[in-house]
């Protein structure tokens, strides 16, 4: 086989692999392939070269593929609320999230206030502020009377995690990356980041979102043709969950005005997995805007962590619900009342021990100061 023919064979082989095996975006970091390299004997002329080219292409595709999800290993979780810090953020807290920004396998907490994005790191003595960046100076043309904010941590174009945030007082949001001890702005963000790549815009002058921008974020369930666009206060989603059978699960919870939460759980079912339900939809009423969704105890079943749907000024509570096949548990597996309002919930592995830690930010009188509670 000539060199030209050999090159053509390799291209054909890669095309075949790409067609059958898929792939993932360039630049994204993946764990090493669990499979050994394909043995490829030397020699053999043209057929041998074709074989080696095929083998290389399959190995490359294999390395690029996600490893098959494995059923999670449950960890023991004892739910109890413990206050870990009380901190003055300099302005009212709007949203909270957690994620590993510096690649040390420990999640940082990211707080969004009316003025700043703040990266916090839990330590033995409480919370330490790692970095802070002011939100863009541009004022919003029309803002809601009660400030609204959204912050997520999402993979950026170079594979590093970046912070995306927007607050309603400001005319735009931004994308930041943690660069040492500073947050470096990467660029503007027009819409409010809800989760992952989902974004939405506020209804002008009001405290809720409508429709969906990139990613089509919207309350679950299609709206009838003549119905107004669905509106919602908050969306959280989780795509790194594996159920007990080892199936990848994606879940999204949407909180609508009035306190109804709609949870959609999508399971990647195999072709011969007769017992697998690809899409489930559940509802829970009396839910506040602060909400989180995660498999905290790694048992393959999601936990829904909710705040209460009371009016501003009322006492609040955090409740943890198990989200089984039939929907949320009839009673919360954990409930803790607070005299203040639960302004934000977040989860992440902040101590690097492999399990998820759930935080609740409770706002005390004066609004700028929040108490951070670890819930298990």
């Amino acid at each position, binding site marked *: 086989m000539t060199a030209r023919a050999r090159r053509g064979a390799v291209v054909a082989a890669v095309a075949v692999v790409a067609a059958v095996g898929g792939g993932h975006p360039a630049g994204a970091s993946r764990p090493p392939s669990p499979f050994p390299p394909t043995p490829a004997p030397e020699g053999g002329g043209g057929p041998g070269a074709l074989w080696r080219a095929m083998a290389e292409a399959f190995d490359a595709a294999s390395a690029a593929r996600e490893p098959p999800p494995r059923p999670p290993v449950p960890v023991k979780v004892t739910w109890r609320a413990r206050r870990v810090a009380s901190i003055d953020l300099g302005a009212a807290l709007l949203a909270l999230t957690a994620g590993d920004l510096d690649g040390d396998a420990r999640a940082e907490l990211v707080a969004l206030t009316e003025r700043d994005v703040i990266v916090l790191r839990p330590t033995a003595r409480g919370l330490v502020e790692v970095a802070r960046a002011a939100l863009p100076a541009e004022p919003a*043309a029309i803002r*809601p*009377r009660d400030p609204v904010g959204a912050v997520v941590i999402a993979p950026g174009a170079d594979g590093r995690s970046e912070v995306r945030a927007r607050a309603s007082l400001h005319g735009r949001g931004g994308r930041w990356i943690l660069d040492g001890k500073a947050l470096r702005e990467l660029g503007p963000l027009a819409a409010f980041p809800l989760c992952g790549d989902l974004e939405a815009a506020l209804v002008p002058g*009001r405290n809720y979102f409508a429709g969906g921008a990139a990613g089509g974020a919207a309350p679950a369930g299609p709206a009838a043709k003549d119905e107004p666009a669905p509106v919602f206060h908050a969306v959280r989603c989780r795509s790194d969950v594996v159920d007990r059978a080892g199936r990848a699960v994606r879940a999204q919870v949407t909180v609508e005005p009035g306190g109804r939460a709609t949870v959609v759980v999508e399971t990647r079912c195999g072709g011969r997995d007769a017992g697998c339900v690809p899409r489930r939809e559940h509802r829970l009423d009396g839910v*506040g*805007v602060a909400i989180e969704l995660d498999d905290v105890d790694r048992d393959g079943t999601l936990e829904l962590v909710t705040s209460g749907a*009371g*009016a*501003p000024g009322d006492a609040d509570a955090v409740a943890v619900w198990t989200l089984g096949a039939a929907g949320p548990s009839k009673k919360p597996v954990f409930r803790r009342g607070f005299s203040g309002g639960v302004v934000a919930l977040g989860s992440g592995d902040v101590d690097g021990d492999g399990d998820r830690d759930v935080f609740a930010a409770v706002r005390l009188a004066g609004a700028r100061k929040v108490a951070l509670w670890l819930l298990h």
Partner: protein
Amino acid sequence: MPAAVVAVAAALAAPPLASGEGRPGYGGEVIGTLLGEPATLDPVMARSHAEIAVTGLLFDTLYVVGPDGAVRPHLAAALPELTDQRVRIALRPGLTFHDGTALTAVDVLATLARIRTSQAAGWLLASVADLAVDGDDVIVTLATPRKDLARLLATPWTAITPRGLAPKRDAPVGSGPFRLVARRADRLELAPWEHHSAGRPYVDRLTLRWFTGASDEAQLYETGGASWSLRGATRFAGASPKHPTAELESPATVLVFVGFGQAHADVLGNRDFRAALDAALARSGLVTVGTGERAVPAGDPVPVDLGGPALAAAAADPRLDVAGAALTRAAAAVPALGRARIGSLTLEILVADSRPDDREVAARVVRALDKLGARATITAVSAAELARRVAAGACDLYVGQATIELAAPALIYAQAFALAGDRATADKLVTGAIAGARMRETFAARLPVLPLLHRAVRVHHRADLRGAWFDGSARLGVADLFVWPPR
């Protein structure tokens, strides 16, 4: 320390922001009340609590004072930056008036120019040397540096009107959170302005009523006809409200005063006669004025809640010896005040018929005049008629009301002189030409008005009406009210 007092007052009146994190819902019709009929909807001319309350709903200012007492940009994009006594004020993008026209720097310039030349509110901009527009920004040049420019431009009198013109009485066009839908004989009907830059108000419809009967407002609330009452929750004192009710009280920063007209100019323009009346007043009894809200008798325009002097015990009751001496001095200049002739002097005291408490106040002024030997009558007129006659000087005395918007004593004294139409002295106080102890001395020497009391405003509201808060000048944050649970 006035600033500290203001902070305390603001904290006391601040909303319970920190508990529960549900979001207010939109919807519901709210029927509320005012402390009387608004005589004008022109921000520059607004005086009474009702006028200030309504103009604050219809119009916007460049800056606002938040629940925490801090000044914040409102129509302005940012707090002013002073460079060589020049202040550049950029506006938020996309501002619109209720008629859909854009609110621009030209409107701001025209409004500030009108205020600057007005007799009523020009004192606020006494330090301004020049106004100009540069692109989309307004440039304010100050004669002397002022750190409190943003605070001055947060006062309700500086609200922006289209092209700076006085708004039409029945069809005002502003940019505030509510727009006027209809004006009736006893109420204003308002609707939320969807494009308000600080957010659409939560309620779908707002009616603001006023009453002439002393117990009408409480009765309406008691029978479920109103969402809140500023004059008690029940018609009969001591009764329990018929439905779940919450209450909230503002700082005592609404000044009730006696003002003077020109009908008997020789008598009422005489400073010693004013001093005689001041000394003859039984202010201690004023604590009972109203329907249970806090009333602080005062002899000084600066409220105790803002660091003003408490009324001395000796000054709370009539000081007839001081009054007699002052009247003797007055009689030397004005023969009509002589012992033999004063008995034939009859003075008219005007009150607004929609402020029933003012009649009670006026009755005490009548008694004080009686102690001086003069007779007086009380005439209740509509708020508009009261404003017209006061502006024309066509009255003897009147019971006036003013909200104290600024905490600095110099500015409060300036406001008091402005109420009496003395712009020149007000300007001197604002620019610092009269400062320190001379401020109080100047006030006492001229007595442009006689402060009687500072009253609080107490709102009794249905428990399902949430989000109530008062600012430091006793204005209810109506745009932030919401019905919970949403209907």
